[in-house]
């Protein structure tokens, strides 16, 4: 089969895909180390009381989880390596150098959004309002971890789908990270299918439910996942930072 036809066929198939992928999320999807990192701690710093609290609220959050994902696939692309922009279906994203460079060889771009639903955040707020601040904070951190896990599952799902046609997927990138402005959410959302998994976007580009993730990833024969370039990034406050300066 001609490679171009193969890619077009795969994209055509997946372009009809909307909110039908709901990942199965379990305890293994919540990494205690990441929760502790959010508290400024390592595993060695944590006592049994804290670890038991994390485990207890992980189970509670899993009961409340309402995961949803959606994605759309675009092959109408233009990469401007001088201006560091990506134009997707006539919408130009100012993705910045890092994201543009890593996606420039993509033959298709996937735009996605994922959410935990609102129940986890409601639990966090309830605990905070009752004076259980540590517990509320833990649920908030677990919620963030679950949002990332849902996104990771979607990323794997998309990778598997395209993988069957011999295509690779790149890293995923979200507005607000890697020097890509969070305000670009306003351009991204109209390109998502349907009701964007029930996620609403405020004028300040905040997603509601808060524990939601949106972004893009590249697809093609010449893209691949690489280590995030945290060591050369100037955003020292990034919560996703994967290396120390």
């Amino acid at each position: 089969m001609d490679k171009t036809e193969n890619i077009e066929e795969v994209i055509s198939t997946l372009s009809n895909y909307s909110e039908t992928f709901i990942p199965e999320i379990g305890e293994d999807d919540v990494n205690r180390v990441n929760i502790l990192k959010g508290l400024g701690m390592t595993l060695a710093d944590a006592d049994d009381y804290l670890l038991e609290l994390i485990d207890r609220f992980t189970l509670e959050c899993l009961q409340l989880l309402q995961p949803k994902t959606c994605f759309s696939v675009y092959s109408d692309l233009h990469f401007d390596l001088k201006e560091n922009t990506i134009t997707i279906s006539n919408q130009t994203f100012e993705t910045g150098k890092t994201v543009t460079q890593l996606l420039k060889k993509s033959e298709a771009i996937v735009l996605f959004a994922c959410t935990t639903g609102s129940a986890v955040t409601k639990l966090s707020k309830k605990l905070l309002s009752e004076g259980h601040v540590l517990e509320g904070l833990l649920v908030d951190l677990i919620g963030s971890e679950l949002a990332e896990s849902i996104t990771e599952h979607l990323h794997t799902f998309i990778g598997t789908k395209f993988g069957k046609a011999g295509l690779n997927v790149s890293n995923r990138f979200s507005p607000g990270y890697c020097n890509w402005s969070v305000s670009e959410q306003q351009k991204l959302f109209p390109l998502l299918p349907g009701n964007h998994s029930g996620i609403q976007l405020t004028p300040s580009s905040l997603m509601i439910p808060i524990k939601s993730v949106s972004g893009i990833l590249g697809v093609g024969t010449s893209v691949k996942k690489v280590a995030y370039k945290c060591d050369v990034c100037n955003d020292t406050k990034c919560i996703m930072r994967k290396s120390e300066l």
Partner: protein
Amino acid sequence: MNSEEILLKLAECVEFGKVNKAAPFPPAMKGMDGADELTRQALEMGVKPVDILNEALIKAMDKVGEKFTQKKIFVPQMLIAAKAMNASMEHLKPFFQSGEVKRKGKFIIGTVAGDLHDIGKNLVAMIVEGAGWEVIDLGVDVSAAKFLQAIKENEGAVVGLSALLTTTMLSMKNIVAEIKREYPNVTCLIGGAPINDQFMVEIGADGYSSDPQGAVNYLNALVA
């Protein structure tokens, strides 16, 4: 137990986060009276509320703050200590209201307009209150008008502003500008994940802190 002993025990409860008798933490104090019970007992014994606040609660939270700064404890222990402090403070509230016990000052705090993140703001509010300040929490998505109204109603208050998005940093800039225009002498302290010292200087705020203890240290230095 005399008053000195009870204040020492109360301070220990706050320092190590023993909220009340039923609380399972810390394991070493299981089944013992906590900050809640000891404060009630101290008041019944005739210990002055101002001594409870200054000699037990604030001294204990000062130790907690020092240990946090030295990285001997972390956010969870700070929060549990603050919870124990607040359990004690519940008994002192009537004395604050009557004016018999005065706190260090007033701190107005809110997440700026357009932003709904509140966890960090809530942590700061709790720790600052635990350090002996009266906290007026305006909540989230707080407009300039609401900040200004709170400043008008709470003379001498320091203002804390939180933002967690780069989009709402602009909102913070505008709000600080409006506060400074209306009340040039009001101190503005800012915080949030995308915030830094450079931004503080850029928008004309007075202080920046990346964590709750930093906010406490900044506020305490104002009244020292």
